[in-house]
C-alpha cells in the first residue's frame, strides 16, 4: 500500500501540490483525474521519489521515502514501474534492448533467459517482431506499448501511468486501456493512472481521485464522480 500524507510541492514559489492525503490500496487501479497543470504528474513523480515533497511524506509498503539514501531509494524503486507520457524509450537502444535493460543491470539472468522474457512481454503487449527496431521507427501507440513491456518485464508491484492514452487515436487508446486492465487482472498489479481522458478513467478505474489546483476535490467510485462533478468533467473535456 502507498500512503501519501499531507504532501506539498512548490516549483519556483508556486504551490503545485497542496496537502495531498491519499491511500493507494493494493491490487486496485486508482485514477487521478484532472485537466493539465493541476499537479497530476508531479504527484506521480513524488510517489516514485523523482521529486521530493517540501512538506509531508510518502510511505510505500511501510517505508517512508523521506530521508532515504540514494541506494535505498533505488532499491525501493524496484517495486515500481513508471510509464512516462512521452514513453521515454531510450533512443540509442533497440526495442529489445530497452526492455532488457532492467534485467541486464539488476539480475543475473543469462542472455537466453532475458531474450525469452523480452519475447514473452512483447507478446503480451502485441508487439512481436519489433525487437530490432529503434524507438524512432515506432508510432506513438507502439512506443506506449513498448514502454508498458519495459515496465512489466521485471514484475513490479506498482505501475504508475502518466497520461497513458494522451496523443493516441481511439483504437490505440483502447488497446492501452485493455492492457492496463489485463495487467491488473493477470499479474495483480497495483496501478495509479494519471489522466485527463474520461474514457480511460471509465475503462480502468476502481477508484477515482479528482485533482484541482493541487488539491483533491473528490475521492471515490467512478459512478459517484460523474454525479457530483459533472461540470468539472465537461470543463476538462473541452480544455484537453
Amino acid at each position, binding site marked *: 500500500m502507498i500512503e501519501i500524507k499531507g504532501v506539498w510541492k512548490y516549483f519556483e514559489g508556486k504551490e503545485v501540490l497542496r496537502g495531498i492525503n491519499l491511500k493507494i490500496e493494493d491490487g486496485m487501479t486508482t485514477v487521478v483525474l484532472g485537466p493539465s497543470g493541476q499537479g497530476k504528474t508531479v504527484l506521480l513523480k513524488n510517489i516514485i521519489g*523523482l521529486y521530493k515533497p517540501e512538506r509531508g511524506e510518502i510511505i510505500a509498503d511501510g517505508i517512508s521515502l523521506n530521508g532515504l539514501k540514494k541506494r535505498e531509494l533505488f532499491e525501493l524503486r524496484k517495486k515500481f514501474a513508471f510509464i*512516462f507520457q*512521452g514513453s*521515454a524509450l*531510450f*533512443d540509442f537502444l533497440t526495442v529489445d534492448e530497452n526492455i532488457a535493460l532492467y534485467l541486464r543491470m539488476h539480475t543475473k539472468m543469462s542472455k537466453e533467459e532475458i531474450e525469452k522474457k523480452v519475447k514473452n512481454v512483447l507478446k503480451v503487449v502485441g508487439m512481436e517482431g519489433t525487437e530490432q527496431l529503434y524507438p524512432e521507427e515506432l508510432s506513438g501507440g507502439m512506443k506506449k506499448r513498448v514502454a508498458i513491456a519495459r515496465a512489466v518485464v521485471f514484475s513490479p508491484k506498482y505501475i504508475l501511468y502518466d497520461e497513458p492514452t494522451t496523443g493516441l487515436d481511439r483504437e490505440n487508446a483502447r488497446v492501452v486501456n485493455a492492457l492496463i486492465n489485463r495487467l491488473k487482472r493477470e499479474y495483480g498489479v497495483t496501478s495509479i493512472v494519471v489522466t485527463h481522458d474520461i474514457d480511460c478513467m471509465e475503462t480502468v478505474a476502481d477508484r477515482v481521485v479528482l485533482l484541482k489546483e493541487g488539491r483533491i476535490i473528490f475521492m471515490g467510485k467512478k459512478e459517484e464522480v460523474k454525479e457530483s462533478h459533472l461540470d468539472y468533467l465537461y470543463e476538462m473535456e473541452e480544455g484537453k
Partner: protein
Amino acid sequence: MDFFTAVYEASVLFVETLSQLRRIYFYRRQIVEQFYSLAVTTLPIASIIAVFLGLGSTVQATYQTSSLTPRYFAANVIFKTLIIEGTPIVLGLVLAGKIGGSLAAEIGSMKISEQIDALQSLSIDPVGFLVMPRVIAGLIMVPIITIYANLVAMFSSFFMSTVILNWITPDEYISGMRMNFKVFEMYFGNIIKPSLCGLIIAFIGSFFGLRAKGGAKGVGIASTTAVVVSAVIVVILDYFTGELLL
C-alpha cells in the same frame, strides 16, 4: 549567483562521478561503447587536423628561419612545438566542440524527453550509466587520439620538409628531433595534458546536458555553453599545466 550555483552543482556531480568509479565493472558495457563511439567520431577529424598542423608548422618554420639558422634547430622547434603545445591544444579545442557539444546535446535531449527520469525509475543511476563512462572514455581516449595525432603531424612535417620542400635532409630532421630530448615532455604533451582535457571536455559536456531544460532551445543552450566553457577551461589548463609541470 548562477555561476556559484553551477560551480557547486558541478562539484557535487564530480564527486558523484568519482564515487561511481567503484561500480566500473557494473557499467563496463557502457564504458566500452563510449570508447568505441569516441574513437569512431573523432579519428577522422583528428587525422585531418594533424596532417595540416604538421604541414602548417613546417611552412612557418621554413619561412621564419634565415640561412644562418641551423635547420636541425628548426626541426627541433617544430617537433617540440607540435608535441608539447600545438597538437594537444588545437585538438583539445576541436574536441571541446566535437565531444563537448555532442555530449551536452545527447544528454540534454535525454533530459527533456524524460529518459533520465526513466533511467532513475528503473533504479539505474544516470551518473553511473551516462556520466562516468563518458568521463572515463574522455580521460583515456583523448590521450590515445593525441598520440596518434602527434605521430601523424610529425610524419606530415617530416614528409613536407624532406620530400616536398627538400629543405632539410632526413638525418638532419631526426637529429633535430633528438636534440635536447626529454622523456617527460613526451608524457606531458601526449598523456598528461590530453588526459586532463579529455576529462574536462567529457565532464563539462555531461554536466551541461544534465542541466538542460525547456525543450529544443534548452538543449541548444546547453550544447553551446558546454563548448564555450570547456574551450575556455582547456586554454586555461594549457597555461597552468605548462607553468606548473615544465
